[in-house]
């Protein structure tokens, strides 16, 4: 790492905008995720208002967007665009950006003892490809017909035929282009993650001494590299279907508004297979880093060694491998051979075993600890709670027998918001409370943080636990107005409850944003290691300079969870502390 030592002072642009420093790039990703989160949440609030008070007039939106909201009324076809864009933005441009790209870039080099990524230029390039990806996605709202309306899963024929719904026009094409840019960017990032973790570790940082955050990022990057190519292939074929007249995904005999469609021979099932071959592993790309961060925070703030480190690593690997062969559980009702359904059911239920072990290891880590109930730990506990409840719902979905009833109902929506929405978001927030002092040299306000947590968890369960019950009672997902169906009328109170919870959550998030803004300038100053943590980033100054450590390269002598293992006032040993400080584990 010798060639990193002369990091000359740079001008503003090179330092904060076109930076090659992994930490700046990580923060840029997080900032971009916050902006996209505002968009995604705004869309969610519009949906919740519509579902709680169908046909409500939002005159101020009518004035801002006269096409989408004529006289303030949301049109059904635009409702579909809004659910599509909400899902896409949240999965790919908020959670993935903040958690995988943001924390990944910030933490990977500094936690393994490297001064930067293997290939910093590629890393910066990956960010600068993500910028147009976001812009194209946003631009798709403003083309004729509006944004894509075929769901975040982009199922054909809605996504393949240009005249299927208004959003199937240019909105869908831009959606595909934005996703293509996203994949290119993600691939460049993933290549860097894997090579950096394998080749750039500091002296003494063996694989089994890596913090779990790094393990999870590493595995997530590998899963991403393996599972995105099928989506790329599918997206290319879909583009040809849309603009080249082919019919990879369009079956014969379709007609739209009475007019036959000139396509023949394809099958939408091919899209579903290729999409879910990505889609299911993608949920692990997002959730694994969340779990890694949670372990780190639980251990540090409960002052306990992580329980079952090796077992956790193996569980992560098993999840990664099995996760690539269970995609069919999203397609139980597609008319698949029942034996194939059985295969996917068994595979899915087997995955719940390592998942449950991970959850139990989290609980065991807490057992007997002396908890510091600060905002970071609270959010980590929230992650654990959501992981348990969400996984419980997953068991019912993973079984083909019960899924045939639950599929495409609000039960599924509740399930994946606990998982891909909740676990990941709460872990991101826990991570921000935990690493903010390192990133900016100041603490976030604890009092506001606690209010943020309690309102968030209340709002979250209010929204998504309720959705489970709405789903069991038969409400399908993606419907525009439930009052229009006699059988579902009785559920209106639930919908109102969900919307009120959504507003609670929105208030909590606003408090958080205010907290961040205030703390950036006025927060309590942070020391190098305010949490008595053990990993390498806490050896560096807060915030760390370009090149990370002011002193020589760190040398690692022990595993990252040497907490509460020592007598006296200082109950922990940092990874850099020499072998003379007993006990040395791993």
């Amino acid at each position, binding site marked *: *790492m*010798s*060639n*990193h030592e002369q990091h000359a002072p740079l001008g503003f642009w090179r330092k904060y905008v076109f930076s090659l420093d992994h930490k700046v790039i990580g923060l840029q990703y997080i900032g971009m995720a916050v902006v996209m989160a505002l968009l995604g949440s705004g869309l969610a609030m519009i949906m919740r208002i519509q579902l709680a008070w169908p046909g409500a007039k939002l005159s101020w939106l009518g004035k801002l967007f006269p096409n989408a909201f004529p006289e303030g009324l949301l049109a059904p076809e635009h409702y579909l665009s809004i659910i599509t864009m909400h899902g896409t933005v949240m999965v790919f441009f908020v959670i993935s950006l903040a958690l995988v790209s943001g924390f990944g870039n910030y933490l990977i080099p500094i936690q393994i003892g*490297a001064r930067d990524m*293997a*290939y910093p*230029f590629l890393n910066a390039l990956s960010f600068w490809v993500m910028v147009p990806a976001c812009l194209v996605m946003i631009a798709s709202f403003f083309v004729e017909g509006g944004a894509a309306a075929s769901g975040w899963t982009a199922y054909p024929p809605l996504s393949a035929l240009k005249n299927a719904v208004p959003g199937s026009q240019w909105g869908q094409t831009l959606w595909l282009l934005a996703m293509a840019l996203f994949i290119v960017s993600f*691939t460049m990032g*993933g*290549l*860097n993650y*894997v*090579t*950096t973790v*394998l*080749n*750039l*570790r*500091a*002296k*003494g*940082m*063996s*694989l089994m001494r890596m913090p779990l955050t790094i393990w999870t990022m590493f595995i997530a990057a590998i899963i991403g*590299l*393996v599972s*995105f*190519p*099928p989506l*790329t*292939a*599918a997206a*290319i*074929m879909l583009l*040809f279907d849309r603009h*080249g*007249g*082919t*019919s*990879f995904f369009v079956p014969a005999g379709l007609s739209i508004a009475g007019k036959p469609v000139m396509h*023949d*021979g*394809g*099958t939408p*099932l*091919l899209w579903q*297979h*290729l999409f879910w*071959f990505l889609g299911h592993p993608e949920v692990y790309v997002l959730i694994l880093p969340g779990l890694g961060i949670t372990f780190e925070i639980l251990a540090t703030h409960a002052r306990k060694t992580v329980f079952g480190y090796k077992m956790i690593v193996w569980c992560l690997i098993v999840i990664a491998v099995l996760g690539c062969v269970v995609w069919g559980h999203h397609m139980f009702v597609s008319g698949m051979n029942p034996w194939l359904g059985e295969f996917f059911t068994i595979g899915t239920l087997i995955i719940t075993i390592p998942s449950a072990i991970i959850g139990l290891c989290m609980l065991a880590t807490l057992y007997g600890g002396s908890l510091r109930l600060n905002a970071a730990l609270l959010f980590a506990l929230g992650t654990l709670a959501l992981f348990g409840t969400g996984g419980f719902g997953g068991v019912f979905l993973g079984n083909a027998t019960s899924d045939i009833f639950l599929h495409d109902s609000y039960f599924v929506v509740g399930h994946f918001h606990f998982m891909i929405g909740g676990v990941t978001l709460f872990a991101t927030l826990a991570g921000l409370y935990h690493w903010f002092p390192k990133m900016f040299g100041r603490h976030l306000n604890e009092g506001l943080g606690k209010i943020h947590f309690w309102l968030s968890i209340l709002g979250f369960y209010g929204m998504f636990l309720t959705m489970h019950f709405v789903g069991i009672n038969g409400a399908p997902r993606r419907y525009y107005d439930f009052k229009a169906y006699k059988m579902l009328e009785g559920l209106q109170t639930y919908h109102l409850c969900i919307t009120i919870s959504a507003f609670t959550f929105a208030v909590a998030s606003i408090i958080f944003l205010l907290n961040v803004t205030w703390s950036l300038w006025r927060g309590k100053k942070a020391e190098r290691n305010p949490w008595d943590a053990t990993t390498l980033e806490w050896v560096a100054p807060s915030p760390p300079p370009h090149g990370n450590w002011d002193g020589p390269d760190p040398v690692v002598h022990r595993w990252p969870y040497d907490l509460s293992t020592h007598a006296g006032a200082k109950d922990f040993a940092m990874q850099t502390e020499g072998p003379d400080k007993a006990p040395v584990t791993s």
Partner: protein
Amino acid sequence: MSHSTTTTWDGGGLPFGVSWQKLMMWLFIVGDAILFASFLAGYGFLRLANPNWPDSGQIFHMSLIGTMTFVLISSSATMAAAVGASRAGQREKATRLVWLTALGGAIFLGMQAYEWSTFIHAGARLSTNPWGVPLFSSCFFVITGFHGTHVASGVLILALTAWRNSTGKASAEGVELAGLYWHFVDLVWVFIFTFFYLV
């Protein structure tokens, strides 16, 4: 890159014993291979869904395809020789061999262009063809086209490598990286040849 290669890691022996550059190239190749595998799997899926798929043996000129395949595989051999020469420090020989490899790729592309044009003359289009199932020509153009773009980019990379090597800018590892990519492109063709033309 400001980074040196292998010397930066001292955590106890390089995993796989390769520099990060080579590791990254391998990972990229694995991803790209899965991309091609997805195309071929999609093609297989569609072909199974359409029982009266045209008989490719009657439509393609197998002697032409065979020659193309031979040219491409020979270019892999010259590439391997180039890597050997450049490792042995014979820079000029390596440059010449890389140029020869690029030439092989260019000939392949020329023959593919000829094949496409005869195919189009016979009435094949992206969405229709005279032999029946429209997806037959869709798959043909998309898959061979996607591979063709890989060959074209490979030829560019080879030309760049040869030129950098002749001026002394490319390291032996640079030649090797270009070689890895080229072998991969050739290997993919073997699969396309088998699954599209032979089966």
